[in-house]
């Protein structure tokens, strides 16, 4: 039965052309991120922290884009660093943060949610209390305080971002999965498994969690977008990544450039981020349509 539903969802999704294109865009971004990680760009002589232009004259002046060399397509900032290369490097941070956050959030959220929903009682009370508490604090505020405190222990940078995001992003998944688990608890096949004497943890793992996977997929995608957007804001506020390039940092630098009519950096950061988030939004919609048509 599950297999059939998945097949139907797949059919529905693959007929949605926009969604397939969006998925393609996401795959390209992930590939670029992988290339950055593997040092591909360093190998071809482009690093986000070294200026491409060697001569000192170029320092202190922005260069607008030109197609003369691929590194200069989008021009350079005043340190002579290629904006295109920086925007590409930023993908790595965005995808890493999105991936880690979404994975951890979905894993933790599913496990806690399914356990709480299935067992009920004290465990349920505890889990509900935990996520209600976290959700009642405005999330940007919580993220900022968390990254401040975590920064003192892990040092500022991407690790701190992981810690802060993973600690907050799981609550949405957890709430939904718990609801679903409560519904499934009384389903026939679960009751049957219970009657057969299968131990409870196994029921949760084998029967409850797999049947909530459609929600987990949708939430994976949602958390991914949320994490990317939040990373940009935190980096913009200088609470985020430090060494790496990030769209947030680019936008922060670009604030001053606007008044001297230099739009390349903010344009690049915005466009790169826009495309990824747009693709994710379309993809999530299609996913939701295919897997969880009832939700609004």
């Amino acid at each position, binding site marked *: 039965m599950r297999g059939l539903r998945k097949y139907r969802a797949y059919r529905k999704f693959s007929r949605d052309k926009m969604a397939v294109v969006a998925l393609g865009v996401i795959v390209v971004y992930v590939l670029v991120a992988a290339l950055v990680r593997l040092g591909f760009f360093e190998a071809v002589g482009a690093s986000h922290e070294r200026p491409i232009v060697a001569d000192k004259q170029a320092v202190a002046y922005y260069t607008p884009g030109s197609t003369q060399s691929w590194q200069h397509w989008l021009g350079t900032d005043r340190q002579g660093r290629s904006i295109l290369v920086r925007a590409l490097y930023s993908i790595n941070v965005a995808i890493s943060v999105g991936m880690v956050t979404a994975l951890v959030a979905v894993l933790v959220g599913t496990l806690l949610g399914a356990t709480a929903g299935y067992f009920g009682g004290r465990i349920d009370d505890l889990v509900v209390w935990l996520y209600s508490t976290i959700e009642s604090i405005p999330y940007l505020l919580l993220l900022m305080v968390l990254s401040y405190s975590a920064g003192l222990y892990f040092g500022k940078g991407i690790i701190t971002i992981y810690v802060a995001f993973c600690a907050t992003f799981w609550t949405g998944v957890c709430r939904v999965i718990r609801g679903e688990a409560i519904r499934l608890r009384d389903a026939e096949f679960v009751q049957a498994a219970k009657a057969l004497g299968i131990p409870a943890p196994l029921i949760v793992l084998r029967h409850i969690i797999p049947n909530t996977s459609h929600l987990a997929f949708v939430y994976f995608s949602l958390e991914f977008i949320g994490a990317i957007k939040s990373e940009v804001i935190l980096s913009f506020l200088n609470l985020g990544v430090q060494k790496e390039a990030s769209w947030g940092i680019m936008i922060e*630098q670009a*604030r001053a450039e*606007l*008044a001297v009519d230099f739009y390349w950096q903010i344009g690049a950061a915005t466009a790169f981020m826009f495309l990824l988030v747009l693709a994710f939004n379309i993809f999530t919609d299609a996913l939701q349509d295919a897997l969880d048509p009832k939700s609004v």
Partner: protein
Amino acid sequence: MRMPRPTAILAVLLLTLAPLAACRQPAGTSPSGKKIIRYPLRAKIGNLDPVRGATQYQNLPGTPIFERLISYRYPRVPFELRPELLEAMPEVSEDGLTYSFALRQGVRFQDDPAFVSTSGKGPEITADDVFYSIKRSCDSHWSPTGYWLFAGRIEGLDEYKAEQRERIANAAAQGRRVSFDYDAPVSGFRKIDSHHFQIRLTQPYPQFLYILAMNYAAIVPRQAVEAYDLEFGQRPVGSGPYRVREFRREGWLTLERNPTYREDYFPSDLSADEVAMGFGAYAGKRVPFLDEIRFEIFEQDQPMWLKFRAGDLDVIQVPAEFWPTAFNPDWSAKPKFMGTHLRHYHLPLLDLIYWGFNMQDPVWGVPPKMKLVRQAISYVVDLEARNQAFYNGLNTLYLGPIPPGLEGYEPGFRKPDVEKARRLLAEAGYAGGKGLPPLQYETSRGGNNREQAEMFTRQMGELGIEVAVNLNSFPELDDKLKKKKAPFFGLAWGADYPDAENFLQLFYGPNESPGSNNFNYRNPEYDALYEQAKVMFPSPERTALYRRLRDIVVEDQPMIGSMARTRTYLWHDRLKNHKPEEVYYDWWQYLDVVHEK
């Protein structure tokens, strides 16, 4: 539930949009024709209590509310002191230890409801107010920041502070709360009558008068401070030409003219230079001229710049990013930008931008061979590139801790010499940076510090030394510095007063963290020479000592640098008598705004 009718929705919409009619108002005037200056501040004002003044952004807006015993003679360069609340400059005894002061007669504090006993009328300033104001900087209740300027200098003040602290701690141990006893005597304070008093020092203090001219030493009324307690910083009362009307920390501070301000005049003994600068028309006139000062607080440069250009602000410190819009690389103004209504001034600051090492750091500070590594680093940083990229080439580059304009300064700076740097590094046994851990670099966030750190990281790459940058908020950075947890840091020090001693004390061993010596540098030779110099009045001998101290710092390299900034000010022509000044801020009463008819 009833549905809202479309007409109701329309009504709400109209109501929301109605005030659109209230369009932008030009700066400088109000409907009542008052003279108003709109002055931007690039950071939040924490608190206007003078004993808490720590930064320019705190002292600048607080200055017009208060008066000090002594101030600077505006707009004179080089600096000259003038009596403010005093009849005349104090008399100093032969041994340089006893200062005799005579207060002006009849100067009253601003009227305020806190003066219950006089039904709101401000009382006259007396010697007791002076003693009270200085004693406050001992009392943690006010979180004071300026005690270090008096520490060890005024006879009996350290003892007073210790006694009171002990009294409070003892009471706390018994579960009681007591506060500082301001009536307890300080042996160095001697009141002669209500307007005459003496202050006795423990040793000659050539900078003492400068200290009294700082906002830390502003005179505050005891009755009002005690009435408002900790709220005093929000509703300050002084005797200055302006008083607070509205204070919104994130938004603005509006000061209005103090109607009971003493009789005070624009200086009439103007020099030829000062007349040439256009001050002549105001000589001898009664001050103040402005009715209102409105400080607007900006946390970002962009909106501040845009508002200035739109004419909504009277004056601005030009942010580096926007400087090229208005000026050519040779510092001349672009006529097209300036038009006919803008004026500018390039103000060289007495400051020190530097990188420092924690000399107690087990890796980078303590081992003697690390001196070579520090020197190597000083030969690889390219100050000129930094100056060009981030400061539009406006900074003065120099070597050592004494900025241009102060006694002991010598021109010349260290140009990068990568070969020499590599040699020094190899000599220390770290050829190519091998064997060295990443250099943990702590600096503050904001401004373009991230980009500056990126440039530094790249330059260090030439030595093969890896850099781990940490951008901190100011409190975090302070915490790391004062707890000796920052192996390497980037900072700036602005002169508190125009004497190189203010910069040399940064390296004096006993001042180590949490004192002002963030380097935790300790060199017995330096300390001995500094102790000798700090009690000396200006003289060629002192200048020689200052130079010697400078050379020791350059040799040991606890710091790498240096740059002194030049700040460019722009203002609209309607603002008169404006000569930018950042060592002191006591010039508000001289400014005027005149609108063309």
